């Protein structure tokens, strides 16, 4: 299994999904060797064998992280080079851009697995596809490409053509492609030249004990709180959240809106809040991690996911697991599995505002969403998703 991140080190849902799938697969009897570019040592993957390029053989202190744009990457790399951070192993140094970096990663990983025996290669997202393709070419083993998010999801308005090309190469060379939802599958077959016959959906899931450490128990004196949590990028729709906030505040003046996360739109968001005259009611909390995340959910009374396009949207499941009602854009994978949610079209700010108001005003609605949600989440465990992966492996291996 080739991946970029494992929980708890992550910037999105991919690290969680990789950790949990590796854990459940090994529990179900599949041996998993998980190869990362860089490991901290406390990666969660059950009894899977986790190997990092930079630890075991040739450490790759990769400055590459998913979800970066090339310009961000170059800035960061500039810093790394300038500070001369340790990046032992790669004699040739880093390539001049992100794409080269990924190619180098492929070199190392391909080399790293030379002595291992395995039946199948499972690569997570475009950063690892080149490596997967290389190993497939060398060994003839079947390749499964897993799409947690595609470039079209991440940057719907200006996808990077180079990244799209790498994705396309992975899809073309893969024996099977795994999507995290039917919604993502449709986007994939629409935007990439992919035959739907080779694509399968394996929904993301949630840990049974997620949210157990927190409780929604609001101080009745405090104003209601509505949460946005995610990267502040076009994909995640934080500006729509602010537009809806402004409409809600027209009707219900005492509501606090929280924006948790960082990203290229942070300044735009702050400016928009000022333009709308709602800066007093909007709190930017910065990036949260670990246990801060469930605490933040439980501190709020509604969670909104206004993404333009969300292949899955794990945070929706997480928030609900903390007993917080979820308002979920229909343009998401989570909307397929989470019936206990209030849904809206991401472009319909009026509808979103109306629904936020309803969730805050009607305790019966909140109660229904949370009670039905708990029941629903019980059927959305990682073991079931891993089992679907197993079936897919069996199908590929004949």
């Amino acid at each position, binding site marked *: 299994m080739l991946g970029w991140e494992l929980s708890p080190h992550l910037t999105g849902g991919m690290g969680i999904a990789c950790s949990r799938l590796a854990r459940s697969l090994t529990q179900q009897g599949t041996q998993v060797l998980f190869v990362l570019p860089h490991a901290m040592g406390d990666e969660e993957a059950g009894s899977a064998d986790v190997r990092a390029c930079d630890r075991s053989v040739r450490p790759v202190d990769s400055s590459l992280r998913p979800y970066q744009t090339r310009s961000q990457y170059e800035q960061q790399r500039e810093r790394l080079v300038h500070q001369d951070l340790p990046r032992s192993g790669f004699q040739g140094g880093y390539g001049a851009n992100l794409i080269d970096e990924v190619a180098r990663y492929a070199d190392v990983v391909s080399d790293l697995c030379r002595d291992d025996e395995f039946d199948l290669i499972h690569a997570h997202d475009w950063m690892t596809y080149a490596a997967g393709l290389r190993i497939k070419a060398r060994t003839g083993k079947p390749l499964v490409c897993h799409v947690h998010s595609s470039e079209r999801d991440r940057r719907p308005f200006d996808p990077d053509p180079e990244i799209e090309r790498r994705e396309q190469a992975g899809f073309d060379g893969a024996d099977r492609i795994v999507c995290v939802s039917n919604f993502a599958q449709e986007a994939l077959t629409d935007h990439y030249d992919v035959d739907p016959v080779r694509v399968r959906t394996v929904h993301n899931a949630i840990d049974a004990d997620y949210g157990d450490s927190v409780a929604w128990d609001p101080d009745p004196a405090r104003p209601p709180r509505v949460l946005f949590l995610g990267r502040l990028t076009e994909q995640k729709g934080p500006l729509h959240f602010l537009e809806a906030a*402004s*409409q*809600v505040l*027209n*009707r219900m003046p005492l509501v606090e809106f929280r924006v948790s996360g960082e990203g290229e739109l942070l300044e735009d968001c702050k400016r928009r809040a000022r333009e709308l005259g709602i800066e007093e009611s909007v709190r930017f909390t910065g990036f949260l991690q670990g246990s801060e995340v469930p605490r933040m959910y439980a501190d709020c009374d509604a969670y909104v996911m206004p993404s333009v396009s969300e292949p899955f949207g794990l945070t929706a499941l997480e928030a609900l697991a903390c007993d917080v009602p979820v308002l979920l854009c229909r343009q998401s994978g989570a909307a397929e599995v989470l*019936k*206990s*949610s*209030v*849904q809206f079209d991401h472009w319909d700010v*009026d509808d979103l*505002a*109306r*629904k936020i*108001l*309803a969730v805050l005003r*009607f*305790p*019966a*609605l909140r*109660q*229904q*969403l949370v*009670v*039905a949600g708990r029941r629903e989440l019980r059927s959305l465990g990682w073991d079931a998703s891993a089992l679907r992966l197993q079936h897919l492996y069996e199908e590929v291996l004949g």
Partner: protein
Amino acid sequence: MTSVVFYFQVHQPYRLGHTPFASAKETREPCAPFARFDDAENERIVRRVAERCYLPMNQVLLDAIDKTDGRFACSFSLSGTVLQQLEDWAPEALDSFVKLADTGRVEFLCETSHHSLCALIDETEFRAQAIAQRDRIESLFGVRPTTFRNTELIFDNRIAQLLEGLGFDQLLGEGADHLLQWRSPSYAYRAHGCERLKLLLRSYVYSDDIAFRFSNREWAGYPLMADTFAGWLDEVPEAAPFIGLFMDYETFGEHQPADTGVLDFMAYLPGYVLENPRLDFSTPAEIGARVEPVGELDVQRPVSWADTERDLSAWLGNPMQREAHRALYELGPKVRRAADQSPVAASLLAEWRRLTTSDHVYYMATKHHSDAEVHEYFSPFASPYDAFIIFMNVLDDLSSRVDRATMSDSRGEVS
């Protein structure tokens, strides 16, 4: 002699629209009266159902009465909302119901005027809706109804007593297993606390053979032929006075399209039934006139014909539904008072009554399993949550208009 008693329910609600809200960013200006009902959609649906079901099926029944020289008989209940919709949008279908009434072999029953759940919570409103509907049925079809069927066959001791007090002679109900236990639905009963009113219950097995299973290809009885079904009816003990076949009329041509053969089935059934000398057809009023109750049923909790539970869970099963129901009827006394005081507010009462139609809370059901499909089939909304939010917003808006009407009225009195 055992009588086959057909009762067909005809109903269409005034569905609320998804979008014609004043948006949240606009002022709190209330919307125009009735603006939130999606009349384009309501008209489209009632016309479609008239074309697929009411018109062709009425013709089938008319022919059956004609061909059997009036030995075929059946009964209908048309909710006040569907009557209004037919009058406005499909008058030819209403005429065809009148033609059926003219044969003298079709009984038109009474129900609440708005297919509402008011019997459960608001007795004043229940009386008003029952009486309004009785008058309307009498004026449309020429006979004063003596049989009542409450919304979704919901009844208990109290509702039965209320109806006896209103002068009805028969009440239709569900022959639920938990109610009857070892007893047969094919006899008349008396509800606890009633003296005169006769309970005529539905034989749900035979009814659902036609209403649900008929078009199910997985069913062992598929395809069901009219002669086969007539044979099944012969299995009812000879001493049983009647078999209650109660179902939605939209079963014929709408829920089950004509190409399933369900209309043809009904065209042939009367002939096959009447071939059997121990079977005939009667209306509920005819049964009530000649059959005495064999015993008392103590119906403490309301029974309905819906879903597998046969209780109220289809309408009041979750917190949203109960909240919507509570908030709706909380507004009742206020809106009736306003309507009493000012003719302008009469339209507010009419609007409120449209919201009492049980379909609105039905759309908010979150029941799982197979019944959820039935709910989703009927709902115009993407989810039960949407149904709740839209309903509550509409109710809010109505409530603020009632307040406004009351205030301007009292100002008028002062000046």
